[in-house]
């Protein structure tokens, strides 16, 4: 035993505390403060911006930019808390589309981001971008974020398996065509189950974008909850039989490595795929290179819209930023310039929202992974048809309520089938929407 009165364990911990404290003192967090600090939550974005930065820095000698990769989990809540607490926040930050509304909970003047509306009109961006993409970042007509993307949606499929099963993608035009194929090839039981499409029976992910495809959504432009309108009822009553009952054609095992296995082993034959997700397959499901292909989403009715949208990111400039002009310029460079555009596209497959960039040869080029298809061309023809979705601080809540309605309807369908099912969906959505409205009524701002 040591002669330290508190014993050797305490002595050891004291030494650890001192050593680690010294270490941390040597490397303080806010140590070298850059001219602009930018938080991003996507690894792909992070790598891309590192690429574009040198050109920007060359134009602005003496300026430093610190791009930090942070996790999206709780990012918006954390940033919002930091903004209202007056704690150090970055100069610029990327926010995921669902979370943008978090910043709009309080009064308009309390929004922690700069109002960019005038800049957007003055610079001409209002006319140059896919206009629907401003909506998610707008509160009471004022725009607080620059859209990073359009994220049009297509259907990625296992081309090899489709050929083996005699499925002809060209002849699938509507969801009815698609479902007919699904009923034929899906095997829900046995040693090797197989589902035509990845659709979730518990979370709202795909249901939501199919709702968007039909022109539905969670909120309208005035911020009223539209979760229980007739479009939503129709979508839900149509969707549930695809993931429930014995005739279902969709299932979902989760993401990550499990998804990789599920696609490689033919458990899932097709996946609804926005541009950003197509790139993740190229990395994560690399064994399927040359065996995958892309087709537009089946339409609801013959000749209808063959796309929807899934996900999105904005960039905002915080009110604490000391150099808003510089920040704006950096945002323009990162989002809408031709600087390293080919590189950026190669790394992400993400179509920029600025229409005049779509003709870039890199975007139009064929891709080996996708059986030689011109991925960018497919997505850019779909992009103009993407409909707007509207921001709300209650978006997250509404999504949760939709997924609860989905689970309830799946249970109902499994138990009682088609009888009175649509009426049940209507009642259940009404209940969900009422719960959202109750929460909204509580907000005094």
């Amino acid at each position, binding site marked *: 035993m040591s002669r330290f009165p508190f014993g050797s364990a305490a002595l050891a911990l004291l030494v650890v505390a001192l050593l680690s404290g010294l270490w941390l003192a040597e490397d303080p967090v806010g140590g070298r403060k850059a001219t602009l600090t930018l938080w991003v939550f996507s690894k792909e974005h992070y790598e891309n911006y590192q690429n574009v930065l040198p050109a920007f820095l060359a134009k602005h000698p003496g300026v430093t930019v610190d791009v930090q990769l942070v996790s999206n989990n709780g990012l918006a809540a954390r940033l919002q808390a930091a903004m209202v607490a007056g704690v150090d926040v970055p100069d610029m930050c990327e926010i995921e589309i669902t979370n943008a509304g*978090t910043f709009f909970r309080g009064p308009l003047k309390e929004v922690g981001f700069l109002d960019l509306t005038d800049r957007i009109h003055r610079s001409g961006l209002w006319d140059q971008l896919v206009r629907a993409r401003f909506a998610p970042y707008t509160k009471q007509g004022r725009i607080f974020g620059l859209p990073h993307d359009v994220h049009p949606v297509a259907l990625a499929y296992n081309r090899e398996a489709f050929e083996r099963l005699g499925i002809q993608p060209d002849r699938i035009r509507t969801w009815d065509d698609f479902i007919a194929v699904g009923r034929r090839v899906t095997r829900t039981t046995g040693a090797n189950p197989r589902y035509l499409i990845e659709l979730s029976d518990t979370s709202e992910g795909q249901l939501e974008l199919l709702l968007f495809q039909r022109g539905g959504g969670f909120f309208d432009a005035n911020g009223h909850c539209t979760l229980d309108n007739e479009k939503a009822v129709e979508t839900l009553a149509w969707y549930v039989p695809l993931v429930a009952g014995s005739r279902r054609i969709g299932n979902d095992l989760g993401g990550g490595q499990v998804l990789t296995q599920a696609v490689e082993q033919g458990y899932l034959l097709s996946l609804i795929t926005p541009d950003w997700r197509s790139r993740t397959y190229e990395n994560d499901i690399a064994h399927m290179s040359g065996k995958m292909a892309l087709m537009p989403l089946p339409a609801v009715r013959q000749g209808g819209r063959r796309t929807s949208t899934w996900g999105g990111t904005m960039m905002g400039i915080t009110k604490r930023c000391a150099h808003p002009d510089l920040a704006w310029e950096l945002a323009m460079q990162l989002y809408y310039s031709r600087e390293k555009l080919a590189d950026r596209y190669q790394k992400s497959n993400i179509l920029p929202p600025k229409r005049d960039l779509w003709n870039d040869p890199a975007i139009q080029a064929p891709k080996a992974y996708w059986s030689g298809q011109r991925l960018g061309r497919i997505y850019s023809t779909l992009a103009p048809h993407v409909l707007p979705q509207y921001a709300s601080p209650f978006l997250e809540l509404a999504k949760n309520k939709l997924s609860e309605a989905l689970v309830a309807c799946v249970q109902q369908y499994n138990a009682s089938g088609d009888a009175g099912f649509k009426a049940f969906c209507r009642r259940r959505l009404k209940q969900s929407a009422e719960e959202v409205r109750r929460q909204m009524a509580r907000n005094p701002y």
Partner: protein
Amino acid sequence: MTTFKIGRRRADGSTPLPGGAARRTFRFQQRLAPYLFVSPFLILFAVFGLYPLVKSILLSLYVTNGPRDHVFVGLSNYRFLFSDPDFGVAVRNTAVYTFWTVFLQLPLALGLAILLSQKWLKGRNWFRLAFFSPQLVGQVFVGVIFMVLYVPQYGLVNHAIHAVHAGFPLDTKWLGDARLVMPALVLASLWMYVGFNMIYFLAALQAVDRQLYEAAMVDGANGWQQFLAVTLPGIKPVAVYVLVMATIGSLQLFELPYTMLQQSAGPDKSGLTIVMYLYQNGYITGDLGYASAVGWTLALGILIVSLIQMRVTGVWKGASA
């Protein structure tokens, strides 16, 4: 209570003491010492313990947007809370989880402790170490590990069950099926806490008077009767303490489901607990007032449950020691 005995001793003159001015500083120092010793704690406790406690009662009467904007709303936070179906689900989930963890965990822990307390047993330390080891893994880390163990189609849990019972579908989604999330949580928490509670029972068993067993044996009691007549009464204070602590811990469940279900409440809120509700509706939204209201409701719930448990088991003061 131990009393300070210098005074008595000085009175009977048996203790030589330093004299004069030295004695005065000595006595002064002795009177002052306890205040100095408790003051660092007391000051911190007053500022960071008591003040927030009182403040949280006031705060629970406001709707807030972060720490700066406050709007007084009276009791409407509480009214909303009790009428919110989500909170109802959170309470139900937490209650179900608490029931199962306590009623599976404690008997299992006691059983293991009884087996481990056999005198002839060699390597008792190794077993104890093995059973206790999960306790070293924090809830977040357990959440990460079990998230991967529960993976459908390719995960260890599904393959293990499938190996024993071939009819079990490999693509069972433990964390993606509203009916299976709770069993998955209970199983993970059993893994974490059985060994922890076992340590308490083990210590209590060792303190039971062995002569009581001999007496019971003479009376012709069989093993089960001995358990009821001697073991249970002997370990009762500890058992109640463990029961109350396990219940309180279960009622505050948060990290395990929050990590395992990837920062969500799970399908159909099946993994939503009271503290998760508090976190999502208070801190994520920045409504600290509402968070306080939920916190106090939870505190009262815990108090009531603990008091009932102590009342029913007839140990009123045992648990506070």
